[in-house]
């Protein structure tokens, strides 16, 4: 492997790791505040217990998110010094605002976590709300940087770097609204599905646990609403990609030739040598309709563009299929669940539905990672699309295999520890109070 690939692998690994904790840091505070609010409204102490459990989960996940985020802020320079040296000033504004939001989040999380007995209930709830709001703001600002990398604006490119810089224009590069909405929704969706999956798992073993039923009733509304909104926002996002980044769209859809009335290829494996997609299910004119709202619209194929500006087509296509597939499955489950809720005036509790939620628990995270891969692989070979290639941004430091493997080992270790800690937090709430029962352990392997 070359140093460039190691650098990309290390950045990818760091982001793939961080993104899970960041998403939890955005969404868990909302669920935590929702349970606080339910406790205030119903006076039911189970909701207080739930919010305390969620607070512990948030504390663990936020801490790992904070340190892995610190790593990322340095890695931007450690791995891509030319990118930061030239474009640091162009995208400094959203990064600084992200810093402010992250600061606010950490401050109020400190008050929320450690201050339950020290501050008034009103201030405590306010702190929780501030954590939720600043968490969302921080994800919003950092996504703006990615928007810029995908579709840069606000400067004039010269061989010596950018000039005539307008940081505000750069901060709101085209597509910012759909991409940030798509990302924020995915944070809530992934976390709510994971939480629902965990409680569904416990309920399958202990159907009588009132605590877990209430916990599920906190997670399900958020999970269902986000799962239904996401396809709409995702579609808007894809329509922007179709217009602004046609190469990426062509790779996502495995579209090699420019075509009017292009079909939607579901699944399949693109082969760049033959320019075909094997084993795909074609829906006639589907892509033209979805991308441009017109069955006869022209969709640009990869062959329109020089070969050295193609992203890795097969990877982008497969990641996109995974994201859309998991997203559709979650939307379907949300529809069924909401239908049940509407007819029976209660959230589902039967074994079949619990199994469905258990199996869907990890899908939000899978979709989140897959979607992020689509946007990152899909932008290659550029780090800033059209103006700077990833290969020109990489550090001259040699032996990048060493930090890559070091961080891989560290992150795997941290991941295992976090899962173990969270598992014990959940086990602590089981009705039979047997946190270390042998089959509780064996069974839980499914969840993670």
């Amino acid at each position, binding site marked *: 492997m070359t140093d460039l690939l190691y650098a990309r692998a290390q950045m990818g690994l760091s982001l793939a790791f961080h993104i899970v904790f960041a998403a939890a840091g955005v969404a868990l505070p909302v669920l935590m505040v929702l349970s606080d609010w339910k406790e205030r409204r119903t006076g039911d102490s189970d909701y207080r217990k739930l919010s305390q459990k969620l607070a512990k989960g948030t504390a663990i996940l936020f801490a790992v998110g904070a340190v892995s985020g610190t790593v990322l802020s340095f890695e931007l320079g450690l791995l891509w010094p030319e990118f930061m040296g030239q474009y640091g000033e162009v995208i400094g504004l959203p990064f600084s605002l992200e810093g402010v939001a*992250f600061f606010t989040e950490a401050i109020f999380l400190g008050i929320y976590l450690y201050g339950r007995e020290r501050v008034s209930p009103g201030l405590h709830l306010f702190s929780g709300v501030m954590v939720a709001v600043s968490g969302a703001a921080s994800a919003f600002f950092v996504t703006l940087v990615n928007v810029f990398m995908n579709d840069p604006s606000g400067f004039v490119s010269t061989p010596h770097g950018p000039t005539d810089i307008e*940081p505000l224009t750069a901060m709101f590069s085209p597509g910012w609204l759909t991409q940030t909405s798509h990302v924020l929704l995915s944070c809530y969706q992934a976390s709510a599905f994971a939480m629902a999956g965990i409680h569904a798992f416990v309920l399958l073993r202990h159907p009588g646990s009132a605590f877990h039923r209430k916990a599920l009733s906190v997670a399900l509304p958020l999970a269902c609403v986000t799962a239904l909104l996401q396809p709409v926002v995702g579609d808007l996002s894809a329509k922007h990609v179709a217009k602004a980044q046609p190469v990426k769209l062509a790779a996502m859809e495995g579209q090699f030739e420019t075509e009017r009335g292009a079909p939607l290829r579901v699944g399949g494996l693109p082969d760049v040598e033959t320019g075909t997609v094997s084993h795909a299910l074609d829906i006639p004119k589907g892509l033209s309709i979805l991308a441009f709202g017109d069955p006869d619209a022209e969709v640009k194929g990869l062959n329109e563009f020089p070969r050295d500006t193609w992203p890795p087509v097969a990877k982008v296509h497969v990641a996109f299929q995974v994201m859309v597939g998991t997203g559709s499955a979650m939307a379907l489950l949300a529809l069924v669940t909401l239908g049940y809720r509407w007819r029976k005036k209660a959230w589902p509790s039967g074994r079949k539905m619990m199994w469905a939620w258990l199996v869907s628990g990890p899908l939000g995270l899978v979709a989140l990672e897959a979607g992020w891969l689509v946007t990152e692989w899909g932008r290659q070979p550029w780090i800033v699309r059209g103006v700077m290639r990833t290969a020109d941004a990489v550090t001259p430091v040699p032996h990048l295999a060493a930090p890559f493997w070091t961080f891989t080992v560290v992150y795997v270790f941290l991941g295992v520890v976090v899962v173990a800690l969270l598992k014990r937090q959940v086990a602590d709430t089981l009705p039979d109070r047997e946190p270390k029962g042998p089959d509780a352990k064996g069974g839980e392997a499914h969840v993670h």
Partner: protein
Amino acid sequence: MSTDAVLGFVLAGTFVLYALFGGADFGGGVWDLLSFGPRKAEQRALIARAMGPVWEVNHIWLIVGVVLLFAGFPRAFAALSVALHVPLTLLLLGIVFRGAAFTFRTYDMRGDAAQRQWGLVFSGASIVAPLLLGMCVGAVVSGSIRVEGRVVVSGFFASWLSPFSWAVGVLALALFAFLAAVFLTHEASGAELREDFRKRALGAGVAVFLAALVVLLLAREGAPRVWEGLSRSPFALALHAATGVAAVTAFALLWTRRFQWARLAAALQAGLIVLGWAASQYPYLVVPDVTLQGAAASPAAQRLLLIALAVGALTVIPSIALLFRVFRPRPEGASTVDSGH
């Protein structure tokens, strides 16, 4: 004042705050490792209680500094990221293990053995990280990082492994341990515990003095340009004199057990040391090839950055004030902090 000078000043201010808050936080880890005597467990509990609500906040000053550097002075950030790739990567590993282990220790429910293991990781990383941080500062000051055009030509090891850089690393470690011990005398709820940390503070104060002396002796050879600035510029000399006065005052106040005031004097001392560093290398960001002006972002970008900073300060400063007010030490006899069940 030009925007680069203002931003340079803000950058130095951020490092002062990181040294005070993040530094005390690292120092807490040092004393966790060095806890001994009959009140070993109480010492550790005090450190954990004082750090728990604020450690994440304390370390965000570093992120603020990094963002300011790449947004305001992108070429300097690029050069430093290349020249100091190795120590910065090691520093990051230290930061990751420290924060993760501290949190895992708080929430690991498996009992004492597991807690001790996490404690060891946490405190070990608390020693390594300040050392590396100081070594990076030493490398920047020493003038051994050379940049031609946009290319770093001085290699990846020599600059931060020089005796001078090591000495700055040890100074940083001693300073952070000193700050933490002084702050903990104020946080401690019992007279005996307070006395434990007073002794540690006095010892660390001596260590700071010795380390500073070694840095000074090595600076003539190891950081010639800064040595010159230090001995010629009246402003830098005045700063260093003020640092000396603050140090002696802090020591005297600790000696006479005026902990409230000792805390202020120690903070002043640490702040002046960082400012003294900044002043002695002004106008260089990376001595001797990168100046504030040479690395500066465009004026438009710098102006917006200053506006963002002002907005940030308006949000963050009142929030931090609230945080520290909520968790200020309580009078003796009051219940300890509830860290959730």
